[in-house]
């Protein structure tokens, strides 16, 4: 009996090995990807690191190691303040996104029948599959000088001239950032909340716990990984955001992404590289801090 039980999987494994390719051949499929990502993803990023430590002499990049590009960045007060502003805008946008997405996802998982959950989830993700440019652009229709909000205020005689507070300022940037990355947050939170066993909820209530105690003591600790993943998925793209501050942020809403673009379009490659590397450094820092609770696989599978 026991010998049969142990030998059956062994036979299966033996056959499986026959199906599998042997040796290096099994990795052959990686070759095109390694060429593509090696040559056009890893090498350029490494090159940017190099550039950030090289010197520009008479518009030519000289392979002479220096920290001048970083020193320059931190010597200009507008750049430094832009960097801090980028960080707090990213934190605010991420916090707002999670704060809006969490109750929504909770509602979706808890109160919506399973059969409709999928459809409602697809509806949330749908805007993500439309053009990123258009999603930013569509807000101009609402926030702009001649946009819906201002037109409405003027029509209602609350104001007689367009208010620019709704546009060309940081609140507008944060609003659009929340809009852009909301689907990421819902998707990751959903993947995590879907696995939660609601019987624990009932059990705790039966034992006399108040609803908010159940949420803070039972639900949230189990969702820590999901929430962290959501934070990372929103925070990283927001850090390098260029278009939203460009279109709805105006001069007040500049973020570090805009600085990077300005450097590169002004052919100041080494300085631009240093600024780009600061963004990369912030991302790496974030990943190191949160590396324990990353759930990338689950998020991508969802």
């Amino acid at each position: 009996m026991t010998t049969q039980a142990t030998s059956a999987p062994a036979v299966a494994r033996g056959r499986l090995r026959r199906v599998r390719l042997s040796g290096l051949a099994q990795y052959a499929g990686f070759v095109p990807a390694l060429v593509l990502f090696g040559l056009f993803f890893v090498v350029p990023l490494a090159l940017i690191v190099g550039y950030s430590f090289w010197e520009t002499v008479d518009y030519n990049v000289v392979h002479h190691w220096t920290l001048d590009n970083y020193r320059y960045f931190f010597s200009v007060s507008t750049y430094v303040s832009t960097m801090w502003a980028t960080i707090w805008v990213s934190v605010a946008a991420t916090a707002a996104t999670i704060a809006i997405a969490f109750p929504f996802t909770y509602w979706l998982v808890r109160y919506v029948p399973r059969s409709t959950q999928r459809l409602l989830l697809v509806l949330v993700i749908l805007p993500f599959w439309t053009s990123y440019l258009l999603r930013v652009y569509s807000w101009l229709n609402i926030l702009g000088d001649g946009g819906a909000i201002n037109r409405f205020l003027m029509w209602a005689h609350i104001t007689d001239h367009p208010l620019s507070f709704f546009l060309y300022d940081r609140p507008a940037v944060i609003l659009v950032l929340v809009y852009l990355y909301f689907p990421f947050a819902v998707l990751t939170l959903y993947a995590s909340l879907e696995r939660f066993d609601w019987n624990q909820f009932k059990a705790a209530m039966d034992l006399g716990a108040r609803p908010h105690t159940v949420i803070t003591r039972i639900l949230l600790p189990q969702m820590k990984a999901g929430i962290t993943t959501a934070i990372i998925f929103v925070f990283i793209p927001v850090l390098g955001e260029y278009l939203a501050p460009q279109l709805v942020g105006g001069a007040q809403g500049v973020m570090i992404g805009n600085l990077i673009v300005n450097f590169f379009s002004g052919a100041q490659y080494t300085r631009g590289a240093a600024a780009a590397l600061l963004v990369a450094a912030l991302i790496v820092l974030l990943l190191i801090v949160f590396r324990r609770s990353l759930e990338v696989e689950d998020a991508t599978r969802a």
Partner: protein
Amino acid sequence: MRELEVVSQHRRLIRTFLGGWAVCVYVFLFAPIVLLVLFSFNANKYGTFPFTGWTTSWYGQVFGDYQIKDALSTSLRVAVEVTIISTVVGTAAAFPLVRSRLPFRSGVRIAFTLPIMIPGLLIGVSLLVLLTSTFHMQLSPQTAVIGQAIYTTPFVLLLVAARLQGFDPALERAASDLGANTFNRLRRVVLPLIMPAIFAGALFAFTLSLDEFIITLFLIGGHNTLPIYIYTQVKFGITPEVNALATLLLAASLVLIAIAFVLPAGVRRARVAVQARRS
């Protein structure tokens, strides 16, 4: 008893509140898009409030504009090339990712998702430096193809890998036992099974390429794709013509994605139906 009533009332209140919250979320998500579409049919020549009547003349202008025609043909050419590259590269890499005796499998998977996760801005500028300064290439739609493929390939890879993971290895073993060699197993068993995922991946890649903005902005040089064209127009303010073009692009994306979403599910349903009939 009394307490229970209070609790259930409390719960109903929470439920109503969360339901309202969800409605607000959907309004937030779709209001800008719906307004964009409405404005594209608005006769008001400033492309915004108030509504002064329905018209389709902005669409007429879009179809008559040779700059838009030009941008559209560049967009399509780029998208086709990006789709071919990322489908081939992504599908090929999905096999060893799922099936080889790979050390650090989840690490490799995360590494392949990096191009999606890091800001497109970094991909754009770093490729710009490499292609222009190191390779001394002229910026063209071809350089944009390279940049976009970096971003779209991981999507195909993840989709096909998920499909490969989900399929029963016994099928291949059976084919092998019946004497099929590696090539025949691939052609007759594996490819037909993962075809819906490959096709969906290709559609995703095509759509992402059509809509891609930031990487393209750095790498396309003097040419325009549709999003780049819209961007150059937006700088001068909202126009109804751009609203119409945006609506068309939106519609195209949604149709393509709908097909990509429905396709694998449809195939699955067909297969279940076949199995049900057999048993």
